[in-house]
């Protein structure tokens, strides 16, 4: 299996939010995360972005109630 660079990992981490990754891509990501803290951090941060924007979307809801 091809080892991913951090640059490639960041692209997959983003695409994971938008499409179902192939099994090979998922395994490659997991292997990479096991040895790379920087990419683990970015992965958590990209996940967080989704929650953060959702929070911002919902906020108008509360202000107006």
């Amino acid at each position, binding site marked *: 299996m091809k080892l991913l660079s951090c640059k490639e990992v960041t692209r997959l981490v*983003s695409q994971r939010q938008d499409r179902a990754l192939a099994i090979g891509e998922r395994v490659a990501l997991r292997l990479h995360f096991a040895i790379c803290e920087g990419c683990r*951090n970015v992965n958590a*941060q990209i996940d967080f972005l989704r929650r953060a924007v959702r929070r*911002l979307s919902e906020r108008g809801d509360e202000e107006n109630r």
Partner: protein
Amino acid sequence: MAADFRSQIENQRAYLLRYASMQLRNPDAAEDVVQETLLAALAGEAGFAGRSNLRTWLTGILKHKIVDAIRRASREHAVEAGDPDADAGEFDPLFDERGHWREAPDAWESPDRALEQTQFLAALQKCLEGLPARTAEAFMMREHLGLETGEICKELGVTSTHCWVLLYRARMALRQCLEASWFGASRAKRT
């Protein structure tokens, strides 16, 4: 009854305008889609009968109107659709020639606690406003309107690969912006 429905709908205007403004940067365009939504809602009162939540129903109509507006706008810009920077090369400097981090990103301290802070949400809003127009448009269609990538590509008239690049660019730029304006700053304060 009709007058009552009209005033109930009118009460939602401010909310709808905020919702639309998160997606459409042009205030006039946001006003327009809200106006269209209110008119469509009045004309379609029967469609609401029996539904529990007026706001949810209105937001559903508004989403369609927003997507229509984006579609119209991207038709007008169709000529310039061939983006020269479709590969998000602006993030290359973060990596060395082998594609490894030059400087590995640090973790963010209790990010979910930040979600409860008004100042953090303001910082996020500011970061969103700093994104290039088309990048922001694709990202907010995905995360704010909750559209699937296929639909976003179709409305913007770009390939799915280009769509992923736009979304990648948005996320990487927001990550950097929040690191600089929020999480990096609180880390520096602690140490």
